[in-house]
């Protein structure tokens, strides 16, 4: 077990990463144990000495947090993948919207609420807020936000028809049959949704860096894109 490589990863990556771990193990590499939790929890745990070799965060501030505290090796930090933001509606909804300056999202909401991950604390929400600000409609909808704990919960509100519209990651939106992707935000309308990763300072596995390289290898990237993720920014 001393050989195993422990990966601390944001929960939203779990199904892709499980597959990648299996592929890694199949190559005769040490077993990979993935530990999923919110990025915030993982960052704090690393800061407090959690044993782990690799940290994959869902956003950059928490990666910066651990870098600043010198509990990851900054020179190993890379971007794993990117994600898109999509506007979604319940499957039966006929709403049509295209992101553009002052596009009529508030009117489309009507009395309903716009389901987002908490824009003050959760990365997905922060990106959504930035996109809406980019198009100048944030002010119109800021009073009508339902702040979910994370992008998955935001998706559930729409899937259950509680909210007429939501903004979530593209990866989440595409696999939920009860929602329809109304539109995606164009690249550049918000800071890139980047999943940064790094080797921790107290990593014990000699293969940690090799694992990062493996994740960036073309087969791994293909699997990520299969799940809807975008390639890491150049």
């Amino acid at each position, binding site marked *: 077990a001393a050989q195993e490589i422990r990966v601390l990863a944001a929960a939203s990556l779990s199904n892709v990463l499980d597959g990648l771990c299996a592929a890694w193990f199949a190559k005769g590499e040490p077993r990979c144990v993935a530990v999923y939790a*919110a990025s*915030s929890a993982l*960052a704090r745990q690393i800061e407090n000495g959690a044993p782990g070799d690799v940290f994959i965060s869902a956003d950059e*501030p*928490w990666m*910066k*947090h651990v870098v600043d505290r010198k509990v990851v090796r900054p020179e190993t930090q890379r971007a794993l993948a990117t994600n898109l933001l999509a506007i979604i509606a319940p499957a039966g909804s006929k709403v049509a919207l295209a992101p553009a300056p002052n596009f009529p999202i508030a009117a489309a909401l009507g009395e309903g*609420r716009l*389901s987002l991950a*908490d824009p*003050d*604390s*959760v990365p997905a929400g922060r990106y959504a807020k930035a996109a809406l600000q980019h198009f100048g409609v944030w002010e119109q909808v800021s009073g009508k*936000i*339902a*702040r*979910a*704990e994370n992008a998955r*919960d*935001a998706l*559930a*509100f729409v899937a*259950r*028809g*509680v*909210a007429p519209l939501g903004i979530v990651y593209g990866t989440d939106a595409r696999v939920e049959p009860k929602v329809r992707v109304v539109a995606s935000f164009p690249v550049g309308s918000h800071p890139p949704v980047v999943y940064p990763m790094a080797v921790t300072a107290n990593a014990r596995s000699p293969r940690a860096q090799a694992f990062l390289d493996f994740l960036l290898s073309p087969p791994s990237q293909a699997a990520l894109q299969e799940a809807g993720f975008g390639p890491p920014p150049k």
Partner: protein
Amino acid sequence: MLLSPEEVGILLLSVKVAAWSVAISLAPAIAVGWALARYSFPGKAAIDAILHLPLVLPPVVVGYVLLILFAPKGPLGAPLRDWFGIDFAFSWRGAVLAAAVMGFPLMTQAIRLSAQTVDRKLEQAARTLGAPPWQVFLTITLPLMAPGVLAGTVLSFARSLGEFGATITFVSSIPGETRTLPLAIYAYTQVPGGDGPALRLTLISVAVALAALAGAELLNRALARRVGAPA
């Protein structure tokens, strides 16, 4: 420690939600706790298990189940909305419901426990004095169960104050509507550097809980005096 208007708003909302949660739970919890203590019936174990589910399941799952059931088009949400005009989605009423569901097993167990200890010989005596069962319940059983009702209320109030997972999953975190203390605290802990405001809110929670418990303790002592138990 001076509270900001935002903090005051969160505090008042939290207390309102917890108080309502206790208020709507009380009568059913008394009925259920008493029935479980007193009667054996087929399916009792199943009812007991269902009551405990909110404890056993991750709160997020409970919230998700509530969401499915009480969504405007959900199997319970639709009739409630159509017939009674009650809408839980994204409203503080939903937060009350979530808190009530999570606190219910605690309240019920405490009440059940004290219902078990009420001496039935006293109830018999009351019947021979002309009191029909419902009067016996109100004048003898219920007062003698008071410590359990009180303890259950305290537990459920505290649990409601602290309810997080089910609430955020069911009704999300809407400032002024469903963003209670734990949700606000959670939000702060999710951003690097949010520890300061989170700590302030935590202290507010502690203060509320302390006040509630102090009140309960006073009441409890009064009850103990009432039945003449040595102090």
